């Protein structure tokens, strides 16, 4: 019996590589000018899912919540080896905080119904909150193992992992089902497979209400004809729990940060000036 794995992926602006043309004259970032990428740790989590699939057999469904353009991260997941993909998209989900996000994703997971392991990245680089994974685990009433760097063993009943803790690590064992969040140290994620790119590059979304397992035919390599697209109604989502109204946290205000300049003393890159600075700091008892 193959395992059922769900991976959660997120499309994020690439905050780590801000190109010059994304900087506005006032020194702030024009977010819309940043390239949209798959959240890096979600690729690490996908890699762990694929390794389980290769060792003991599994079918993998990738889910993302985002605008229609987030189909890109599902294609990236299909190129790497997932069997099936679901795009959860609806204007009603816009402006969701982590709790409302976890609600929408939990509804989608429950619509899929069967799963043994949910794997996602530890945190997304645009918010760095690491909250959505544990919130989904709580809502589903299942166990969680966060910050995993190695899946030591997995079978149809249990999983054993190495988890980083402050100052060291621990080895944990949990029965399935379980939600796992993966850190970047876990692996070097694979790139897209050329064959799968050819297969899926033109795949489109189709709105449908039910989840039909007939789409999952991992044994023949070609598993899904289209990406399933679900909106709030398809998920029977309670609108009070979605988007802004489902978000207990509100943004009071946002300030663009511009570093306040100091009266900086420029020290010339000469032995004399640098030596003088070191002596001055010694006299002030800052060094020595």
């Amino acid at each position: 019996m193959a395992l059922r794995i769900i991976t959660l992926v997120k499309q994020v602006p690439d905050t780590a590589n801000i190109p010059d043309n994304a900087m506005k004259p006032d020194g702030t970032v024009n977010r819309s000018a940043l390239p949209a990428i798959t959240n890096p740790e979600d690729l690490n989590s996908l890699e762990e899912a694929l390794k389980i699939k290769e060792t003991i057999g599994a079918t993998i469904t990738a889910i993302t919540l985002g605008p229609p353009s987030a189909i890109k991260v599902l294609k990236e997941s299909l190129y790497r080896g997932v069997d099936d993909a679901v795009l959860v998209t609806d204007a009603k989900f816009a402006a969701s905080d982590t709790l409302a996000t976890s609600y929408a994703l939990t509804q989608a997971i429950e619509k899929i119904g069967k799963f043994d392991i949910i794997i996602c990245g530890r945190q997304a680089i645009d918010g760095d909150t690491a909250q959505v994974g544990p919130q989904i685990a709580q809502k589903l009433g299942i166990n969680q193992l966060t910050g995993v760097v190695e899946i030591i063993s997995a079978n149809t009943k249990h999983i054993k992992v190495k988890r980083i803790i402050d100052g060291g690590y621990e080895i944990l064992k949990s029965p399935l089902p379980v939600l796992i969040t993966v850190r970047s140290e876990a692996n070097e994620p694979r790139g897209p497979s050329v064959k799968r790119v050819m297969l899926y590059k033109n795949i489109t979304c189709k709105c449908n209400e039910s989840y039909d397992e007939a789409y999952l035919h991992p044994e023949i390599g070609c598993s899904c004809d289209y990406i399933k697209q679900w909106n709030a109604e398809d998920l029977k989502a309670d609108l009070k729990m979605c988007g802004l109204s489902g978000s207990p946290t509100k943004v009071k205000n946002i300030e663009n940060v511009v570093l306040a300049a100091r009266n900086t003393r420029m020290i010339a890159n000469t032995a004399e000036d640098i030596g003088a600075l070191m002596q001055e700091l010694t006299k002030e008892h800052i060094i020595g």
Partner: protein
Amino acid sequence: MNPKSVLVFIEQNDKEIANVSLELICEARRLANQLKTSVSAAVLGFGLKKKLDVLAHYGSDEIYYVEDKRLEHFTSVPYAKIIAGLITKHQPQIVLFGATINGRDLAPRVSAALSCGLTADCTNLQIGDYNFQGKTKENILLQIRPAFGGNIIATIVSPDCSPSMASVREGVMKLSTPDQNRKAKIIEEKCELAASDFPTEVCEVVRAAKSVDLKGSKIVVAAGMGVSSKESLDLVKKLASALGAEIGCTRPVVDAGLLPLECQIGQTGSTVRPNLYIACGISGQLQHWTGISESKRIIAINSDRNAPILKVAHYSIIGDLNDVIPKMLKGIAFKNTTY
């Protein structure tokens, strides 16, 4: 018992209370004084009763202590269930968690159980008002954190739910002087969990003694991505050892595998306040600046004359660190021979 207290989740590892939890008690004291309420602490574990006094010394009024052998080591499900239960029972208005690995595993689970707001990694907490759609919520927790790769600072509020919850990293809040005579009321709570509430089996825990003490160090020498080779990293290490300093670094240096995670300084690493911070090849992205801005003196060395750090450091040297550091070492050596 004050139903509107400021509650702190107390993290303990191997029966030692984490520093961040003491820092948060001090911060909770400050917030509670402003709100004219009390500070409570929630401690889960086994055999910790003798360790609880320190929480009173730093400012707790009540301590909820849940003792059970099964709670000796942190696991997500039982801890979240007990903390959510304590919150429901005692109704604090604010709950603070250390933004440690376990704190950040626990807090979101509790927030989902209670459907209340949670803000991760706050760098500043304040009490203030929130105006929304013609209504004003007075005296609520303002949760301030950098977002979007540190390019913005957001103030987050949770106006319609109670409690407001936030996590804060170690070193962000300052420890106040403990009062050894201060006492707190210890309230023992029963752990009423079934075996099924403990799904995780802890097979092994390996925790090394901290080899890096960035927070307590008077001088920190830090490497950024300008330190690209092993040779230049060795030079940075040489400077640190000549000054008796600890080594720190930015996140990309950790990501590149050049230095371990415990050396990371900034929003997602440690916050430091040394007398002297020497930034070697660090451009000065905000995520990093957040962790060093309270250093008493900052020397920045960067070959890129447009690097933001050169404008905010106390002393700036434009130049290649491979060229500058040897001159600094010479300056220190010169000092050593003259004294």
